[in-house]
Structures are given as structure tokens and as C-alpha cells.
């Protein structure tokens, strides 16, 4: 029965109802040799909502281990881009690849993409209100996510979790119900969940919103340290923060890539100044 799909040892096969899409997607472009070192790339993705194009034929390549900042005006499409990558929004056109051309993920369900190693922090902090900080982390923790595995499975070891608690500084709030945390703490908790989930690609949407200067700095360090063996994509409006972490910056505007390059260049770029940074 379908439930068995959820068993841990079950291979990453595709939902029957989706396989068609995938096959066709892979058939279309008979693979040119997979560009090595690429963790993730987006090809001519368009997302339109009732005529309005949130993403407009956007193409984007992110190398393994890279730490990429995406900036851009409000409504430029940054979050939508992340929605597309994580399978929350289906692109109207285009494709998204994870590591190899074989993994066209734009049509996969969220949970499968997540299992393939894509983790995400939402723009507005989202945690499990009913559960304690600890349980939130446990739920996010890497490990088998199948029904029966979790029915009979033993509790996993807690080092990583305690470690994470340390990092996000919520150790003494570990038994608080997440619902009652303050905004900033929720932000941290979600970052923590991202850590324990241990993904290959981290998509982080506005991590430092509502954080103080020092916390911002701390977050910057954290993310930079993660980059390298993991790939990190950050969306942020806090230029200070961006300056601290950025290797390469992509500027989105009205669903298109306006400019791409090191931050300094971007900051000179008149168009960027015009639509985003301001005088």
C-alpha cells in the first residue's frame, strides 16, 4: 500500500501521479554533462498568478558550498523563488534542478524535496505552536520520516539537538511551548530547526528580521560557518548583514535578475541603487 512508500529504506521513487511530469521533464532536455559543483540551478522559471508574473523567466545557478545572498525590492519575487525551489509553488514554466539533471524537483511534493536535502526557513517565523522548543527540534531533526519508522522507532540521540539549542541560545527555554516564544526567539528556533534538519541546501528567508545588532552579527557568523560543506541561500534586506556574509549577491527585480556579482559592484550599480538601495 502507499503507506509503505514512507518507509525509510524505500528509495526516492517518484509519486505515481508525478512521475509523468518528471519523465517528460528529463526527456525534454537530454542531459548535457551535469555541470559539476552546482548544488542547485533554476532554468527559465516563470511563476504567474492570474496574469501577474511574480517570477519572469528567471535563471539562476548556485554552486556547491556557496553562500549566496538574494536581495531585491519588496515583491521582487525572492520568497516566491524559494517557494518554487521547495515545491510550495509550482512554476508556470521552467525547471529546477538539484545537483544533477536527473533531479528535476519543480514538480515534486515539498516533503520529498525536503528529504532530498533542501531545508528552508520561512520569512515569517513558523514553528509548531503546540510543541515545546525541544519537540520542535526533534520533529525537524534529520532521520527517518516514515510513518512506521516513527511509530516503532526509538528516540534519536540528542547531541545535535542540545548543540543546536546552545547555538540558538534557547537552552533554558527548551520546555517552553513554541507558541509563546517572542518573535525573535521564534526566528532563532526556526534557524535551529534548520540546523538539526541538516540539509545540503539551506534557503534562509530574512533570518535577522527583528534581531538586534549583535544577534545579527552572530547569525552572520553562523551562516558563514555553515557555508562550505553546505550550500546557503539567504534573502535579506539588512545591507549590514549582507555585507558581512556575502560572497556573491543576486539582485531580483520584478521577477527578473537585475544584476549579479560581488556586493561592492552591486552597491555601485545605479539600477540597484535606483530600485532598491536608495541614495
Amino acid at each position, binding site marked *: 500500500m502507499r503507506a509503505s512508500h*514512507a518507509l525509510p529504506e524505500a528509495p526516492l521513487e517518484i509519486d505515481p501521479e508525478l512521475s509523468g511530469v518528471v519523465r517528460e521533464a528529463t526527456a525534454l532536455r537530454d542531459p548535457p554533462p551535469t555541470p559539476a559543483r552546482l548544488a542547485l540551478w533554476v532554468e527559465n522559471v516563470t511563476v504567474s498568478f492570474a496574469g501577474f508574473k511574480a517570477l519572469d523567466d528567471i535563471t539562476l545557478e548556485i554552486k556547491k558550498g556557496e553562500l549566496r545572498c538574494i536581495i531585491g525590492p519588496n515583491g521582487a519575487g525572492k520568497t516566491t523563488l524559494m517557494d518554487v525551489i521547495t515545491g510550495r509553488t509550482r512554476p508556470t514554466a521552467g525547471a529546477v534542478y538539484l545537483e544533477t539533471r536527473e533531479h528535476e524537483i519543480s514538480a515534486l511534493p515539498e516533503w520529498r524535496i525536503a528529504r532530498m536535502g533542501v531545508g528552508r526557513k520561512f520569512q515569517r517565523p513558523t514553528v509548531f505552536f503546540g510543541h515545546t522548543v525541544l519537540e520542535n527540534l526533534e520533529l525537524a531533526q534529520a532521520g527517518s*520520516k516514515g510513518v512506521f519508522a516513527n511509530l516503532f522507532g526509538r528516540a534519536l540521540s540528542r547531541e545535535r539537538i542540545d548543540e543546536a539549542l546552545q547555538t540558538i541560545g534557547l537552552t533554558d527555554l527548551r520546555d517552553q511551548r513554541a507558541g509563546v516564544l517572542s518573535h525573535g526567539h521564534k526566528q532563532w528556533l526556526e534557524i535551529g530547526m534548520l540546523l538539526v534538519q541538516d540539509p545540503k541546501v539551506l534557503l534562509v528567508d530574512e533570518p535577522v528580521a527583528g534581531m538586534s545588532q549583535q544577534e545579527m552579527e552572530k547569525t552572520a557568523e553562523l551562516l558563514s560557518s555553515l557555508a562550505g560543506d553546505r550550500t546557503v541561500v539567504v534573502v535579506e534586506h539588512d545591507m549590514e548583514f549582507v555585507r558581512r556574509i556575502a560572497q556573491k549577491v543576486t539582485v531580483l527585480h520584478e521577477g527578473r535578475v537585475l544584476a549579479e556579482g560581488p556586493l561592492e559592484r552591486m552597491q555601485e550599480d545605479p539600477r540597484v541603487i535606483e530600485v532598491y538601495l536608495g541614495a
Partner: protein
Amino acid sequence: MDLAALRERVRALGGSGRSIALGALAFGILVVVPVLNVLPSVDSSLHVPDYLIPLLGKFLCYAILALALDLVWGFTGILSLGHGLFFALGGYAMGMHLMRTMSGEGVYRSDLPDFMVFLDWKKLPWYWLGFDSFPFALAMAILVPGALALSFGFFAFRSRLRGVYLSIVTQALTYAAMLLFFQNATGFGGNNGLTDFKRILGYSLRASSTKLGLYVATAVTLIGTYFLCRYVTSSKLGRVLTAIRDAELKIRFCGYQTTHYKLFAWTVSAILAGLAGALYVPQVGIINPSEMQPSSSIEIAIWVAVGGRGTLVGPILGAFLVNGGKSWLTSSFPSAWLYALGVLFVVVTLYLPQGLVGIGEALSARWRMRKSA
């Protein structure tokens, strides 16, 4: 062993105080009642009269049913308004068996059930075959609701049906089934349903010993169900279920295939409901489509809500209180009982947000305070 694991254990036990209370309750249901029914002389004040046994048995069935619903509603956030259907299906499976075992004793002295003779059906319809055997019937009582739930749930959850929309669909389902079963042509005895059973496993249903046996069987099942639900909800799976209830999207981003989880809870719940139905029929002696009425499914939700949603004791208490109240009031205040029941519901919602278990929690909290002070 480390703190967290220990905390888990404690949560599983639901606090030692409560677990003692539970143990007592279980003991009372499973041992005390039967003993008091059998041992003391009929006139002694301790005697549990015979007519109470099937009654209590019925309540136990309702309790199982309530637990089943709570598993999907309280813990997974799926309010089913169609659990009456699964209950009834289980009931019919058992009813069909009981009908088959008394072939030749019906009013028409025929091998077929009376209503078939009357509709001058010459042979048993295919879906009645096999019900002569008790194991088969029991299996059906579990499989039919389970299979229905599985297939229905698969489509419903795959198309991301949630909240009231799901509730209404389940309601439509049971409603349609009721109309279908109403029809004589469907082959389940029309609205009279199946009744006038004679014996189960060869034991006369009239013998008080049989009744007691059924009662004990039900009690055991209830306790089993309780432990099953407790295991499920206190396992990590249980936590995922509650997470689905609170933030389904997020949990999917954590890599959980929520459809499978829901499907699991949903199917298990349906199976439990079916089991409850199967135990219910021989004790009340009739199964008919009225069990599938939308209103009776809503009532199940009412029991759960009264007792306390999202807890394991709550539904049991709720089922007992509401139905017990109903049985008592309809005899004692035949014309005013609806007021009493109505007031009960309103009061519970207003003053006991977490249902009856809320009282217990409040008390234990105060007790703890006093102890700490």
C-alpha cells in the same frame, strides 16, 4: 537514561497520579462490575443487576468509538462527521454473521434471513457469503471499514481536503450510505436492519452469562484500544500528527509525507470504530441504518468534546457521561431530559474549555500548588 527520555515516559504515563486513577478505572470496569454481577445475591445492595450489563457494555462500545474519533480529531485535527458509518459497517458485519448462524430459526424457518425470504430472493447475495464463519465476519468488521477509510482517505487527503470541507464530505458519505442501506434492495434488511439474533459462537444471546462474556470482551477491547492510542500518540508519530494538526505545511517542509500520516491515523481510527460496532451489535441486539444518520455521527464528536478533545481519558469519560446521562434522564425525566443535556453541553463549553478532563487537570494543579506551598 537522560532527562528527555524520562520526560517522555512520564508524558506517556500521563502523570503517575492520573495513571493510578486510570488503573483503578480499568480495574473497576474489567473486574469489579462483573464480580458484583455474579457473586452477590440478587437482593444485596452490592449486586449489579443483569439489565445493567448490556447497558454498560453498550457504553463501553461508545467509549471505543469516541477514542477512535479522538485519534483523528483531537490528535490529527481531522473532524470526521462520518464515523457512524464505520461503526455501522462493523456492526453490520457482525449482524450478518449473527443472522447466518440462526438460519432456519427465522420466522420463515428458511435458510435465508427473513427479509430475503420476504423479498422472495432465492439465494444468498454474494456479499453475504462467508459470513457463516465468525473469524471471517470479525475480519470483515475490521477490513471493510478499514478499506473504505483507506480508499476514501487516500483521495481526500491527496486532494488536500481539510477542515470543514473534509467534515462535510465525510458527512455526505455516511448520509449517502444511510439512504443506500435504507433500501430493501440493498440486501441489509432495509430500515429495520438486522435484528432478533439468537446466539453468538453457539452461546445463547439471552443467557446472562453470554452477556457478561460480551461485556468483558468489550472492556478488554476498550482497554486495549486505550493502550494502543496511548502508544500511538506518545510515539514520535503521535507528535507528528499533532504537528500536522497545528502546521501541516511546515511539517511537510520538514520532510514528512503528511498524507501517509493522516491516512494511517484515519484508517486505524476507522478500524477501531468498526470493532466497536462489531461488539455493539450483539449487546444491543439490533443494527440498522439509523446508526449512519449524520446526527448520530455528530453526537460522537459531542462525546469527545464533552470529555476533552486531544486527551485519551476525555473521550471515554465523555461517552460514559453523555450516554449514561441520556439513559438515566430519559427514564427519570422523560419530558425534560433534553434541557438537561443541552445545558450540560453549553456549560461544559463555557466553563470547561478542555472538557471534563479539564476539571481533573484544574484539581490536580491546585493539589500540586498546595503541596508546593
